């Protein structure tokens, strides 16, 4: 019956009659009128004969009746206990009801009380009840009646420890009865499938039939509740007849549901004890039954259990093998099984293996391998070499593969890199999905926070995450919307963090890791490298520092030995030099030191003049040839001995530029790192100089695409080189930054930012020889003077004045009072030109502050009268402005400055005041 309103009416009427009769029944029980109680109970039960109701509504009515029958049960029991009425009499009275269905309900009600009274063996009563229950063959009514049998006998089955055990029967009897009830219920249920009716109602009938499944499954619950059943009994007496019924009923719905029930209601130990039989049952299910969810829930259940109780796995059961055999059999016997289902079964198996057999990598490899072969057998192939897929993998297969690949990631992390088949399977996925797995791998690596110290591991890891680094093969990487950009940012951040995990005590190995990382990261899309290579640069700078510290320690040791030798032999400077050369040659012979580290190094070699090839050759063909090595190596020796050689203060961008370009081109294909020598206590293979060469190459390669980032990095490298005592290399890095400034930075804002960086970096470099410093400072000041916008020019020239007045009084060649004044005077001139909108007044005040600074810093060229004059000039300018916010602002700035000067003047009265000169300033 379809009409819900009619259903509700029928249900309401049924309910009402049940209430009516229940009322009369309870009145009869209150009056201890057994006969009348039977009558009304029978009338109430008559309502269950209805054919009007859907299963759910019938269930509602049934529950109502059940609630009322509790009172009847209670009445019978008290009649028996208090009124000494024998149960057998009540049992016979119930049989007198002429209507079959009510009679059977009544018999079950009385029967339950009869068992409770123990006036007859439970076994006999149960047998009788079951026998009579067969009388109802209408599927729905029969199912509910059997459910009622199960309901009233719930706690009255003979069972281990129950009062009905012994004379009443044994647990085996109970097993038999419940199994019989189960089998009969299932038959009724399956029979509904064949029910005739209009085909338009088929869907509804199917749904209603599914609703009734609970009534069949309840019997399995009953079996699982028997205390007297253990794993062994389950295996021999319970599972086989159930499977026989399930397999034999040949009903798709029943098979899926009952297998699920079996898994859920029986405890894990039972499943482990009977795995083989259960799996055999799975294989014998109809082909239409979806076996994957069945196996999935079995494996999930056992896997969780064994995961928590590792000892639970029986020694004599190879669960993995059994499950794997079952899966293999299913795949071979069911050609229609979809690829995604096959993969998902492997997902479940893999999950199971990782829970039950942690550390058994061969199991993981096996599952992954099976999937790979299944893919191939269905005509899919890995996407290698950037080829697009011939046939798109169905979405559900992609999702299944992603799940499969993520399981070992969680348990093994980086360990997946050692799984031979893992990467192969990964390549079946489309690019985006490969990327997803790569990201998950990175997150897993990062979450473990363990250092990456194995060269091979770094190589494979970075190889695997290629989909993050590179553009997709079909070139579809739009910059996209904000969400996509955020995702990309996150990706780059992950890569950058992984780069920072790399470290190794062995500097040679560490360097090789950086080289390998550089190779992988460098293959990334041009837009990526500016994010991924930056952390690498900083790692390399750190490494250079570490190596340098070790080198200095070595050298000090050697120097101590030398001094001793020199004292003994009265060595001359020439001898020392010869020794230095000898050492360098020895280094070169070892093949590790590569002198082609850029123009700076070669300039040293050039000036030294004793290299085999000389500077010219070095400039033309660097790139790590052996000749230049020899040229560079003595330079190192020279630096060590403290000899300073002035490099040609070539206009930046000429000879170093050619040199750098040469280096960039030649080193694009970085020479493969020679394998590590296995010798114990082998000498250091890679010098700090070599690391700088590496840095030079990386930053140079980035430069054309990302000039601003590269410029900043060159400056960072310059500081690094300066701090580690490589003034020539630092000079070279500066030169490269200058070249970029000249050739690539056209935006004036970027130019200003770059100049600030360059001036700041230059000031903090301490090792330059005066001539070199002067060359770089002059160049910077020239750039400042050439800026496009006058105010920028003015401010930067002012800034550059500081380059000629080092805070360190003792710094050689870093204080030139005259040039400071020149800079300031020049900026005043420029400021004078900027008259628009009172900009010049603002600039004047700024310059004034610098004057005051230098005046305080005892710069002899900055006379007090300059300040007095400038203050007067500013007053004049400010006074000429119309009142405005800008003017107010300027006045405030000026007054603050003047206040400062006044304070200094007051302090000038004190004899020990540093600012005594201020007495001469008038404002």
């Amino acid at each position, binding site marked *: 019956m379809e009409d819900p309103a009619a259903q509700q009416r029928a249900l309401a009427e049924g309910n009402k009659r049940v209430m009516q009769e229940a009322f009369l029944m309870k009145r009869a029980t209150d009056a201890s009128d057994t006969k009348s109680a039977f009558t009304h109970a029978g009338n109430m039960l008559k309502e269950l004969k209805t054919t009007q109701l859907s299963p759910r509504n019938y269930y509602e009515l049934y529950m109502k009746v059940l*609630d009322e029958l509790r009172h009847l049960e209670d009445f019978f029991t008290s009649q028996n206990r208090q009124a000494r009425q024998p149960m057998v009499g009540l049992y016979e009275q119930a049989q007198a009801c002429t209507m079959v269905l009510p009679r059977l309900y009544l018999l079950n009600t009385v029967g339950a009380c009869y068992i409770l009274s123990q006036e007859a063996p439970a076994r006999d009563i149960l047998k009788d009840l079951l026998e009579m229950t067969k009388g109802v063959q209408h599927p729905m009514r029969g199912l509910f009646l059997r459910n009622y049998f199960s309901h009233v006998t719930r706690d009255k089955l003979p069972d281990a420890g129950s009062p009905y055990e012994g004379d009443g029967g044994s647990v085996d009897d109970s097993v038999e009865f419940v199994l019989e009830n189960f089998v009969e219920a299932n038959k009724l249920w399956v029979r509904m499938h064949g029910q005739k009716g209009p085909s338009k109602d088929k869907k509804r009938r199917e749904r209603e039939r599914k609703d009734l499944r*609970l009534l069949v499954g309840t019997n399995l619950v009953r079996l699982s509740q028997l205390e007297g059943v253990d794993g062994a009994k389950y295996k021999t007496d319970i599972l086989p007849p159930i499977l026989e019924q399930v397999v034999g009923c040949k009903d798709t719905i029943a098979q899926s549901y009952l297998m699920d029930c079996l898994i859920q209601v029986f405890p*894990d130990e039972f499943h482990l004890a009977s795995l083989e039989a259960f799996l055999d049952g799975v294989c014998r299910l109809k082909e239409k039954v979806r076996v994957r969810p069945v196996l999935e829930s079995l494996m999930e259940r056992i896997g969780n259990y064994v995961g928590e109780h590792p000892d639970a796995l029986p020694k004599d059961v190879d669960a993995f093998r059994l499950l794997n055999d079952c899966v293999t059999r299913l795949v071979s016997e069911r050609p229609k099984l979809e690829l995604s289902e096959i993969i998902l079964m492997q997902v479940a198996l893999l999950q199971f293996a990782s829970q039950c057999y942690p550390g058994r990598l061969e199991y993981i490899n096996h599952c992954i391998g099976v999937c790979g072969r299944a893919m191939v057998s269905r005509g899919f192939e890995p996407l290698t070499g950037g080829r697009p897929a011939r046939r798109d993998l169905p979405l559900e297969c992609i999702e299944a593969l992603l799940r499969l690949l993520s399981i070992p990631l969680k348990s093994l992390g980086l360990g997946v890199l050692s799984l031979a088949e893992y990467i192969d399977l990964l390549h079946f996925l489309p690019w985006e999905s490969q990327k997803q797995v790569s990201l998950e791998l990175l997150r897993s690596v990062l979450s473990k926070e363990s250092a990456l110290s194995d060269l091979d591991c770094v190589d494979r890891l970075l190889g695997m995450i290629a989909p993050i680094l590179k553009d997709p093969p079909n070139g579809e990487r739009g910059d996209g919307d904000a969400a996509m950009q955020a995702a990309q940012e996150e990706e780059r951040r992950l890569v950058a963090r992984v780069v920072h995990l790399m470290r190794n005590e062995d500097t040679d190995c560490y360097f090789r890791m950086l080289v390998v990382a550089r190779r992988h990261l460098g293959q990334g899309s041009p837009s990526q490298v500016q994010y991924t290579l930056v952390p690498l640069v900083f790692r390399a700078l750190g490494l250079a520092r570490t190596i340098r510290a070790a080198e200095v320690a070595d050298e000090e040791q050697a120097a101590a030995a030398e001094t001793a030798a020199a004292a003994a032999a009265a060595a001359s400077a020439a001898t020392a030099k010869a020794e230095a050369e000898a050492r360098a040659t020895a280094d070169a012979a070892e093949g590790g030191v590569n002198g082609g580290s850029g123009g700076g190094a070669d300039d040293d070699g050039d000036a030294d003049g004793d290299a085999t090839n000389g500077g010219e050759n070095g400039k033309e063909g660097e790139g790590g040839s052996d000749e230049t090595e020899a040229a560079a190596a003595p330079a190192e020796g020279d630096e060590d001995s403290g000899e300073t050689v002035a490099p040609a203060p070539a206009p930046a961008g000429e000879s170093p530029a050619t040199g750098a370009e040469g280096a960039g081109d030649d080193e694009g294909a970085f020479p493969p790192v020679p394998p590590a020598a296995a010798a114990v206590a082998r000498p250091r293979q890679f010098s700090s100089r070599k690391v700088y060469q590496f840095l030079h190459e990386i930053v140079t390669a980035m430069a054309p695409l990302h000039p601003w980032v590269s410029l900043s990095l060159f400056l960072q490298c310059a500081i690094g080189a300066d701090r580690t005592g490589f003034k020539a290399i630092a000079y070279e890095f500066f030169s490269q930054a200058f070249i970029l400034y000249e050739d690539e930075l056209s935006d004036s804002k970027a130019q200003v930012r770059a100049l600030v960086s360059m001036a700041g970096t230059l000031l903090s470099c301490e090792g330059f020889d005066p001539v070199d410093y002067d060359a770089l400072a002059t160049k910077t000041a020239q750039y400042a003077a050439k800026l496009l916008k006058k105010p920028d020019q003015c401010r930067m020239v002012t800034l550059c004045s500081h380059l000629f007045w080092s805070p360190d009084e003792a710094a050689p060649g870093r204080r030139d009072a005259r040039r400071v004044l020149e800079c300031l005077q020049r900026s005043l001139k420029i400021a004078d030109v900027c008259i628009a909108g009172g900009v010049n007044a603002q600039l004047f005040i700024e310059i004034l502050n610098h004057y005051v600074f230098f005046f305080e810093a005892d710069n002899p060229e900055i006379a007090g009268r300059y300040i007095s004059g400038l203050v007067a000039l500013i007053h004049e300018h400010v006074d000429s402005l119309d009142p405005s916010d800008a003017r107010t602002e300027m006045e405030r700035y000026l007054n603050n400055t003047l206040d400062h000067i006044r304070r200094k003047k007051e302090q000038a009265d004190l004899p020990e005041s540093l600012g005594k000169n201020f007495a001469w300033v008038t404002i």
Partner: protein
Amino acid sequence: MASRRRALLKIIILGDSGVGKTSLMNQYVNKRFSNQYKATIGADFLTKDTVIDDKLVTLQIWDTAGQERFQSLGVAFYRGAEACVLVYDITNPKSFEQLDSWREEFLHQAAPMDPDNFPFVLIGNKVDRESERRVSRQRALQWCKSKGSTPISYIETSAKEAVKVEGAFLEVVQMALINSAQQPPEIYVPEPITLSQAQTPYQSQSSVDSMCC
């Protein structure tokens, strides 16, 4: 009603899958606990006779499937319950968060006469795993306070170690007794009977009906 008859009370236990509903019931009724996990499908019940305030009471305690897929016939058995026990697992915050939906579902389906004062008891189970606790007592009490004018009673139990299980059910039964005394679940007024229309004895009543089944 005759006083010799016992009070029959129906109590429903609700809560997420795996919080220990069946274990609580088994511990209370059979004094047994098993570590084996067996999912409940549909609904199941146990009965227990007990004496409260000199009154004989038969409890019918309904244990329900926490997983919805196992309730294929709906939850008609909620009807007629005198009290409802909500259970969550103190080590599982999700089971706590689900309490509202269990409570609402119960009130909706059972449709008691006075939903605001329907007796609920909240049980926080698994205190034997105190070290893994993830829902504080305070939070649970707060929840109890927020439900209606009279706060819901809250008891923390361990079905495994039989901690406070008896007490928790005693509380439930007392509340159920008060509830059933105050509001008889269904007031049925029989239709007036005319004296000429005597009740027919059932033996002779419906020979036609008995033809089927």
